[in-house]
Each structure stands twice: as C-alpha cells, then as structure tokens.
C-alpha cells in the first residue's frame, strides 16, 4: 500500500481497518542468493539496494530480535558529513545525497531534518582545527561555515557564550545541511521497501553458526522459535555492528581490529523547542539535539571498556550532563527521562570496514563506532555494490580490513590503534 496523505484520509474514514502490515512475516526459504545477517539499518539498506539497484531480490535479512533492535534503534540520530579525511568525506557525502531523497526513495517519511550541526570551538587553536575541517569540506563540495561567537549566540540563544565560562566559546563550525533523521523510521522504511521488492525479513531468527565448505561460507545455521535450521546462500553478508566479534567468531575469524564497547544515550522529558539544531561541545565530548517529540537527545563518550551489555555506568552520566549544563545553564532544571546503551563496533582507527571477505563467500560491514547511523544509506549502497560485484565500489575501496596492518589507517582523530579513543 502506497503511503500518502490521501491514503491516510481514506483509511481514517474506514476506521483505519484496511492498513496492511508494513512488511510480511515470511517463513525462511532453505536457500537464497544472498543472506544478510543483521536487521539493523545497514543490513536492511543493503538488502534494499541489492534489490532496487542490482536486481538481486532473492535475499533474506536475518535478525535475531525485532527489526531495528540494535544500534539503529538506539542512536542519537545525527546525520552529517563534516569529515576531515578524503575517504570519509566522499563516503559520507554520498550518504547525505541518499538521505536527501530517502523519504521518496522509500515512500516512507524518515524525517530527515537538515537543521544544521554546529561543532563548538573554545580557543583559537580549536578554531583553526575547525577551519581545517571546514575547508576540506568546502574543497569536497560540502557546505560548511565557520561561525564566530556572535553568530553562534544568535543561532543558539541558550548557550553560555560569556567569557567567564570555564571553556569560553570562541566560535564553531556549522554544517548547515546536516541534521537528524528519525531512527526507527529509517529501519522501518528500509524494511518495508526491501520487503516490497521481495526480500524476506526474518525476525526472531538468530544466526548461531555458519555453514562452510572448506573455507567457503555457504550459508548459516539459525535458531528460530527455539529450533535450529539451515539456510543456504551463495553469498553471506555480515552487518551486525556491535556483534561483529561474536558473529565472526562463529565463522572461525577469531581476531579482528574491532572491539565492542557500550555507548549510552540519553533523552530528557519533552519540552517545547529549545534548541534548533545539533550542537557539540568542544572541550569534552557531548552532542545534543531535540527530537520532534521535544526530548533533548544527547550522548557523549563511550564507557571505556569492552562490553556486550546494552547498558552503561554512572561516570558517563555525570560527564555528559555536566558538560550539557555547562553549555546550557538554563537546562539544569530540565530532567533526564531515560538512558540506554548500544554496543559499538569500535575499529582501530575510528573508520568503517566494508569489504569482501575475509572468507570466501562472505562480506563484512563493520567498525561503525559512534557514527554508523548517518552512514546507513551509503553503507547499504556500497555494501550491496560490493556483494553484487564481488568488488568494492570506489567509495569504499579504502575501507578494508588490511589497511591497519598495511599502515594506512583512516584516522580522523589521530588517536591511533586504541579503539576506545575514537
């Protein structure tokens, strides 16, 4: 059923009885052309682009929980392409292109909202670092503006721009075309789009092992409704974000340049609009925006330790909230409603991996760290290309597994091979 204002009216008149499921709940077939493990944003978008761009529709997405139960359903929804290094810059700008059309591509309102992302700078040195990034963006054809303190104050009236702030604001870098999108809608929209093209979305189905012929992956073994069964495929793509370590171990790949840690996110009670855009603090680690429902959605650093638990600890609460109320002292009486965690696939350089291999018949999409939500369209698009052609697209050609050992990391922060520093 096509979604539109008209459809809503028509259905409302009939008591909303005629709506049909957004996607089917099919039983698994025994064999597919392609299996994608992971019904998160990346898995679903990969399936969608396999079907829509490459005409490969005999595809299953296998999800152990409910669709969107992973990081795509628990992130702070920031979408941007304000990168410093060329490979990232190109890739994320491709994503922006896809974002801008996504609601139409999917016939699903993903609420992409280019409200602007503002990174604050707190001293002249930091302003120069911002300029360095902003200039790279401009040279890559991405809009960016370096704002002085007054411009920042005009944009975000609540900010403490006084000179007496502990870290006075000097200015900031604005990507005006960046913003947010509605996380769940992205998952559901891709799911519905893929389903309509014939992709089987298998929820409640956990991959527990791989089927191998020699070294070659020829399918997976799954648990579904308490029963084990096999699903075969020519090609198996892994897009399980924080669970990459777990899943790859089943395939016998027991070491990777990835560690899993927990990242917490926070939402306040709903209030009337109080910040128009996304703001990040430059003298610590904090990003905040306001959801359409009115909640301030914010997050900061990961909890610095390996974790597969979707919950974090108190130190991060203290850190992010103290930074938030330092930036916006008028937020002190607003209240935190809920916090949660997601398991992050932190790579050794903070940049992703989209590649063929590491085993024959297998394809890997991982290493998204804090930043894979904004990549959802481009990640799926590139991964689909890589799977369909058995070869990386130019846009992801450098996102290899080998780059670390070859000495060619794509290290935006220059933090080195300490995953939790990225």
């Amino acid at each position, binding site marked *: 059923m096509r979604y539109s*204002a008209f459809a809503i009216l028509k259905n409302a008149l009939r008591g909303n009885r005629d709506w049909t499921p957004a996607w089917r709940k099919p039983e698994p077939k025994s064999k597919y052309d392609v299996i994608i493990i992971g019904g998160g944003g990346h898995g679903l978008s990969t399936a969608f682009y396999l079907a829509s761009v490459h005409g490969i529709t005999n595809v299953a997405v296998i999800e152990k929980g409910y669709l969107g139960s992973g990081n795509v359903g628990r992130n702070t929804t920031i979408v941007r392409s304000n990168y410093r290094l060329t490979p990232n810059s190109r890739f994320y700008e491709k994503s922006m292109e896809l974002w801008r059309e996504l609601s139409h591509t999917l016939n699903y*309102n993903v609420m992409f909202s280019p409200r602007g992302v503002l990174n604050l700078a707190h001293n002249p040195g930091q302003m120069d670092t911002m300029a360095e990034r902003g200039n790279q963006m401009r040279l890559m054809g991405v809009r960016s503006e370096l704002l002085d303190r007054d411009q920042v104050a005009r944009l975000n009236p609540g900010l403490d721009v006084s000179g007496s702030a502990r870290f006075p604001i000097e200015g900031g870098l604005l990507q005006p075309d960046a913003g947010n999108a509605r996380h769940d809608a992205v998952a559901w929209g891709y799911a519905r789009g893929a389903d309509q093209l014939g992709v089987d979305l298998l929820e409640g189905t956990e991959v527990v092992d791989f089927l191998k012929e020699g070294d070659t992956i020829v399918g997976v073994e799954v648990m579904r409704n308490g029963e084990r069964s096999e699903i075969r495929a020519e090609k198996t793509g892994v897009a399980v974000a924080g669970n990459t370590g777990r899943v790859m171990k089943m395939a016998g790949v027991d070491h990777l340049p990835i560690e899993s840690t927990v990242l917490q996110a926070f939402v306040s009670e709903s209030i009337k609009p109080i910040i128009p855009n996304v703001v990040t603090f430059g003298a610590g680690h904090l990003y905040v925006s306001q959801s359409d*429902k009115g909640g301030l959605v914010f997050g900061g650093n990961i909890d610095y330790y390996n974790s597969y638990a979707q919950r974090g600890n108190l130190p991060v609460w203290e850190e992010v909230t103290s930074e938030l109320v330092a930036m916006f002292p008028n937020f002190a009486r607003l209240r935190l409603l809920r916090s949660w965690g997601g398991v992050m696939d932190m790579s050794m350089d903070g940049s992703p991996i989209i590649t063929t291999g590491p085993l024959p018949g297998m394809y890997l999409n991982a290493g998204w760290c804090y930043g894979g939500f904004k990549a959802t369209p481009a990640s799926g698009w590139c991964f689909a290309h890589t799977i369909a052609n058995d070869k990386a697209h130019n846009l992801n050609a450098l996102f290899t597994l080998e780059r670390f050992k070859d000495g060619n990391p794509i290290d935006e922060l220059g933090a080195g091979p300490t995953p939790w520093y990225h």
Partner: protein
Amino acid sequence: MSGFRLNLRNGVGDALSDETINFTFNGKPYQGRKGDTLASALLANGVKIVARSFKYHRPRGIFTAGSEEPNALVTLRIAGRKEPNVRATEVELYDGLIARTQNSWPSVNFDLMTVNQLPGKTFSAGFYYKTFMGPSRPGHKATQFWWICEQFIRRAAGLGKGSAHADPDRYARMNAFCDILVVGSGAAGLAAAQRAASAGAKVIACEENPTLGGALQSAPDILDGEPAKDWVSHAWEELAQEPNVTVLRRTTVQSYFDDNTFLAVERVADHIAQPEKGQPRQRAWNIRAKSTVIATGALERPMVFPGNDLPGVMLADAARRYAVEFGTSPGRSICVFTNNDTGWLAARDMAKSGVIISAIVDVRLDVADHIRAAGEETRAQVRIGAAVVKAKGFRHLSAVKVRDFSEATGHVSGHERTIPCDVLAVSGGWSPAFHLTSQQGGKPQWDAELQAFLPGAPIQKWHCAGAMAGQFGLRSAFRSGEEAAVKALADCGLEDGESSVPVIDGDSVDHAPAPVLEIKTPGKAFVDLQHDVTADDVHLAHREGFISVEHLKRYTTLGMATDQGKTSNMSGLSIMAETQGKPIPDVGTTRFRPPYTPVALGALAGERYGHLAAERLTPMYDLHVEAGAHMYANGPWLRPESYNLPGENVEQAYIRETIAVRKSVGMVDVSTLGKIDVQGPDAAEFLNRIYSNGFAKLPVGKARYGLMLREDGFLFDDGTTWRLDDNRFLMTTTTIGAGKVMEHLEYHHDVVWPDLKVALTSVSDEWAAVAVAGPKSRAVLRKCVTDCDVSNEGMPFMGVRDGEIDGIPVKIARLSFSGELAYEVFCGAHWGRALWKALEKAGEKFDITPYGLEALSTLRIEKGHVAGPELNGRTTPLDLGLGGMISSKKNFVGCALLQRETFSKEDRFQLVAVKSLDGQPITGGSHLVAGQKDEPGRSQGHTTSMCFSPELNCYISLALLEGGFKRHGEKLFASSPVRGKHVAVEVINPHIVDPKGGRMHG
C-alpha cells in the same frame, strides 16, 4: 478553600498541619495547608482540569497521588527556577508557590490546540511516517517540504517550556557506602532495615516520599495496638537514631548500576521556596552497597474503557489517599470501578473519612463476603459482574454508564445504567514496581494468579520484598522484608539480627485481580493518557505488523512519556496479547531503563554544575594576569597567550615579543611542560626502549631531545630528557601529552618490562620552569645565577647544571625551542614566583620581555621545530624530516611497524613551510591547493602552525604537503574558503631561522 476538604480529625488528613499556605495556579490565588501536595490542594479547591494531553490536547485531571502521575504536569516557579513538567502530585506546597498549566493556549480550560482532535482518526499511530514527504522532487527540495512541516510539528509537540535563564541553584553530590541499601520505607522496607540494623549492618534507607511508611501511612490496620501510621512513624524514628542507620526521605533511588552502585537523588530544598544559603537544591547520592533490599511496593493500574481519560477518572488508591492522608475528597460523589478487592477497601476507607461513595462496580461476580461487607459500610450501590462502559462528561466527568459484564467472555450485556458521579476511582490491580531490577537486566516473570509480572531471579546482590515481590499482604510484606534482610546480611558476611514484626490487626486482602483490564465497547479508550495512545492505536499497530512489544511501544509511543508507562504498560500489553491471541507473558514487557523518575540534569551534574572542570595554574599565574596577559585555556591549564600592551592586539603583541627575543631576550613560563622523574639502575635502558633515539649513552649533565612513537610507528610525543645522574633522568613532555606519556611509560614498565628497576614519578607540579631566550639570555643569567658557570664552556649547548638564583636552587638546561641562545630554568614550584621576579629584575637592563604562547609558537615555527599540530597522530618521524632520530642500533617501541612499506612512500604528507607571497596572512587550517579561488582543485595538504615571521617579514606557516620534501620552491595557494581567504604561497624549507644552528650553539 471550597467544600472538598473533609472534616479533619485523627485519621483523616493527618498529613496536614494547621498552617495555611498561599499559592497561585495560573495566576489565581489559592490556599492550601502545610502538608498538602499541589495536587491535593488543587483538589481541595475544586480545580479539576490541570493539564492537557500531548497530542490531542484533551483536558486532563489528577490521576494518581505519586510519582507515577501521567496527567497532572505543571510548570513550577519562574525565571531561572522555572521548571516544566513537574508532577503536581509530588509538589509539596510552600508559601508563595507559583504553578501554571502548560501545553495549552490560551488556557487550560479553553485550549485552541484541541483542534488536533478534529482530524480524529487521521492522527492515528505512526501517521507521520506515511505523509509529509512533500513533492517528489529530488534532493534538497524534497527535504524542504518536510522541514517546513517539521517546524509546525515541533512547535505543537513538547510539553512545558524550559527556562531561558541559568538555574541559580546549586547541586551537590554525596558518596556513600553501606552494607545494605533498603529502597522503600513501607512495611517491607522497614522490616528489612530493622532486621539488618539490629545485626549491626550499616544501612541506608531511601524513601521517595517526604513521609516514611509507604502504604502504612494510610493503612487502616492496627499494629502493636497503634494505628499503622503512628506505629510506622515511631518505628522509623527509632531506627533513624541508630548510629549505623541513615534514613533519607525525599530520596528516590533512580538508577541501579553494576556492582550494586546506585544513584539516588534527594530533593533537599524543593519543598521550600528556595534553598537556604549554601544549601543545594538537590543532592545526587552515589551509593555503593554490598547488598540491597528492594521494597518499592506496587503501582496500581487503571482500567481501559471509552472516556477513561476524562478529568475525574483517577486511581482508586490515589482517591483513598487524598481522603485519608490529605483530608480531601477528590469529588462530590465517587464511583469505584474495580477488578479486585482493593477497590472496595479504598471505597470503605474513603467513606469512613467522610467521602460520598455513590457506587461500587466490580467486573467480578465472585466477591468475598468480608469484602462485600466492607462495601456495604459505604452505603453505595453495588454492582458486581458489571463494568463501566463509558465515562461521560464535557471536559470533566459527570456520570458513568454501567452494564453487565461477563468475566468469562469479556462481553457486556444488558441494560445501560447511568450513575452520576464526578469522580470515578478505578483499580485494575497492582503491578510490582520492579523497575530497578529491570534496569539491571533482571527478567520479569509472569504470575498468573496475581496477574502481574514479578521481578524474577536476581542477577546481582539484590533481594526483593513486599508488594514489589508480589507479597501484597501486610503480614507477608513484613515477613518478606525480614527474609530479604537475612539474605542481604549473608551477602555481607554478617550474622543475623532480631525480628521486630508487630502484631497486626487488620484486613486480610486478596490482591489477585480478575484478568480484565479493558472493557471493549465503542469509543475512544485511552491506554497511555499522556501520549494519547488509544486501544485503537494498539490494534492498528498490530494490523501493521508492529507486534513485538518493543515495536508496539516505538510505533505508538505507548509508555514513552514522562511517566514511562508506569500506569499504562500493563493495559497496553494485555490489549496486545488479546489481539494476538497470546497469553501476556508471551508478549513480554518492554525494558525499564534508568532513571526511575525523571531527574534534573543539574542534579546529575551535581557539584559540577557551574564548575565544569578544575583549572590548572602555574605558580606564576597571578603575575601573568597582573602583567595584562591574555589567558588561554589549553587543556586544563590557563596560559598567557600574549602580554598585550595598551592598545595592542594579540598579533601586534606577539610580533613585538618575538622580535624582542630575537633581538635581545625574552622569558616565558613553561611550567606546564610534563615532567617525569625516571630513576633506577635500569632507567637509561628503559628510556632507550621508549625513545626512538639513543639514551643509553647520554652523559650525565646533558639533555637530549627525544621522540616517542606509538607501537604502530606513528609519532606519539616529544621532549627533552636530562640526565641528572647515572641512574636519574628528568623527562619533559609536551603540555598536552603529559598524562598520556606517563601512562605509556607506566604501561611499559608494569606490563611489558616489569623486570626493569625503574621508578616513574610525575613531577610536573614539583617544578616551575621559565625559558629565557635570546642573544642576551646568557647575560641575564650571568647577572643572577650563582654557584654555576653559565659560560659557553661551563654550560655548553644541551648542558644541564645546578645553580642558584637569589638563593633559589635551580636547575638550568641550555635548550632552545626558539633557535636562539636559550636556557630553561627550573626551580621548586613554591619558588616559581620568586624566580620569575628575579629573572625579570636581572633582565631589566636588557629589556627582558615576557612572552606568551603565540610568540613561543612563532619562534619555533620560524625555526621549523614541530609541536602538537604537526604531531597529529597521523605523522611519522620520517614525515616530519626527523628520520635522523630513528636509531638503527637498537629496538624501541614502534620500531618494527615503522618499517612498513607505506611509510617510505614519496607522496606522503611531509613537513614543509610555506610563505605568503602577497602579504596576506595565512589563516590557520588552510589547505594547500593548486588552483585559483574559484577553482581551487583538490587539497594537497594543509597548514599546521602559522604566524607572522618577523624574520622573513611575511606570513608563514608550517604545512604537511603531499610529497612536500621535493616541492620546495613550488607556488601554491593556501586556501581557506571558510574564512574567504586564498593566499598565494611558496613552498620553502621549514628551517627558516638559523638553519645551521649557529645562534643556539653560540
């Protein structure tokens, strides 16, 4: 006060004192009593509509008497203390309180936003995903349409308004340790705390409410011959006297973290107009407990039927508490609708307090005799096997319609009777408040008998007790509290204590409800009152395939409001279960997350609100400020950027300072350098492994510049290290790198080479340091240094000597970051000020000029010395032209991976300098491009550190340029589109000043 206040007497309105309190609501003055909550005072004044719902702006009345309130959200106070979304049910009345309704316009009684109701079924769950996509034009255009819609939606959404002003109050933290944390002060919590305390355990007990005792505060039972309320108050009073017991009221245990670490938030001064001097508004308690007893009671749940959101519909136990505790009748005529015994008892207790009960409606046919007897005491009409099928009224309840109901089929039948009433007290049974255990991942378990989820097996050291554990009866609450304490004592390795359960004379109540939460008759029936989620929305979600509970929640937003579905989750689940034809446990529950109730962000920041991070100051800080220095936040440090003379800007000042150094002499505070004392028989060997260049053979009395690599071959940090003795070195690091270098060394010592005898101590704070630089620097030292020969022979380049300046013991090293003849003078930090002054005095004759970070940077840029911006984590020593510092005679951290092929590629980003060809400044963060402004082409590199070079009389910058080593002489542009700059530059050798080093060696 209008006629809703009951005749106050012993047992009715005990929470209230005689004191009258004035307050305003929506600008209108009202009176209440001390002890009232805002909710009870509003009820007493006959105020019925207190809020509007989120989506449809439907009128909302008070629904509960506690923190689970979904409806009665108001904005409290004004200006910086303005606080939106406060639950009126929790606000303790104080004189002068100002409260307003929110999310309504022009007023709560007449709200134009109710137009949102008109489109009716079009605003169904998730409708916004299906529309607002705009014309199907690609790119920006398509998004723009949504963006315009979004502006309107955002303004319509949102509850209260935040303040535009900074919060003037302060927040505090408290770190606490105990054997046993008891959460909840009801019968179960009390029993646990008593038993644990009697065993000598260190106990902290937290109670969310201002009064202790939980349900006992209004229980009709007699304990040890005393009314429950009095008994429990005495018991807590006594317990609080014990030295090993801390009792915290107004303190909600909000979050349960790993290893029995808790966050509890105490509302220290929310019940008064404003905090007293020095008093925090709220205090965040970080509690570490060896074991925990969770006795958080249970939350009553409502029934779902058409019209159930009308003001006047409220929970039965809340209505009871308003009558008994607050001496307030929630209405003139009250009808009770229940599926369990507690509704009846609520009716009886209310009637006893003087409330008029018009009817009791129970879906069950089978009601125990003693319960029916209790009902008869109210003199209300009783309808069993019946259900309320509709609540009627314009903006407020005026009557309910009742029909016969079959528990077996769930169908209604028979004649519809109208019962006039202005309050409908509903009880759908009780849900244990297992939020805290769920936060930790505890899996709740369904209890079919109680029709409720129980907390399930513990996965940390917690023990559940009382209603929270499904032990609803008073006796079992006490008993389970004691049992939990016994287990908790065992967790702490403590002996058991004594029992002190009272003799109980009271009702025996069966809390098991009929499994009925929804009455299915046509009309708008609400599940989530705040978010306007209706039973129809749940059905729609099911139809569209959002059948997992988590999908249901996200698609409909059921349970996502400020109350987190405390009163609505169960109804939502039961409707979903029914729709799917599955039992409730198969549908499952959504996960509870911390905090338990919303917490002020200020409270979480605690003492850091207004004091984000400690400032780090050098001993000479005051002198810099006095000298007019412009201070610069550099990590935690505050450092002088430049010493501006009157009328000078930063650039003018640093150029003047730089020239002074090159021409005569300057001095700069370098106390922020990281300093690490490295001692021991293996100190030299250790350093030799850490640095890429050799340190083993460094002579005593000499310093050496060293490079440290990360193990992956990239540069990590740099600095000079001084050999003070055979077995003693003083290492210096960059200011920013100090902490991470220390950890790097400690890691390699502790973990990699523990056999080396070496001791590492941070002495950054031990030493104040001043660099004296310029051709006259030796002359300055000559004037003030005693006990040390500072001549070229006595102190050659890189020499390190001990001496004295004005009686201050100093260490002097002849080092040069500036390229000039220069010295670093170190002394004990507490003499730092004296040293600075002494050097100033000695330099007077040479016009010694204090210089700041900008000049420091300019001097080293001109010299081609690298620093932070060049050590950006992506450069190797080879990239920076420091290949000569890679020892081939030994292995060191990073040496193996430095040999990787890629590092010797010719197109790597390599260090060069560029100079401006047209007199324009090269702004920081510029990129090097080949093309003109309108077509710059791709970035070939970027500038790292820029300055005006007095030496070359033009703007220059260090830069990292692709294949830069071979491109000296090439003409490029330093492009900074974000600053509108495009400057023609020439690539030059970075060693501009004195490339041969004659000056610093001289």
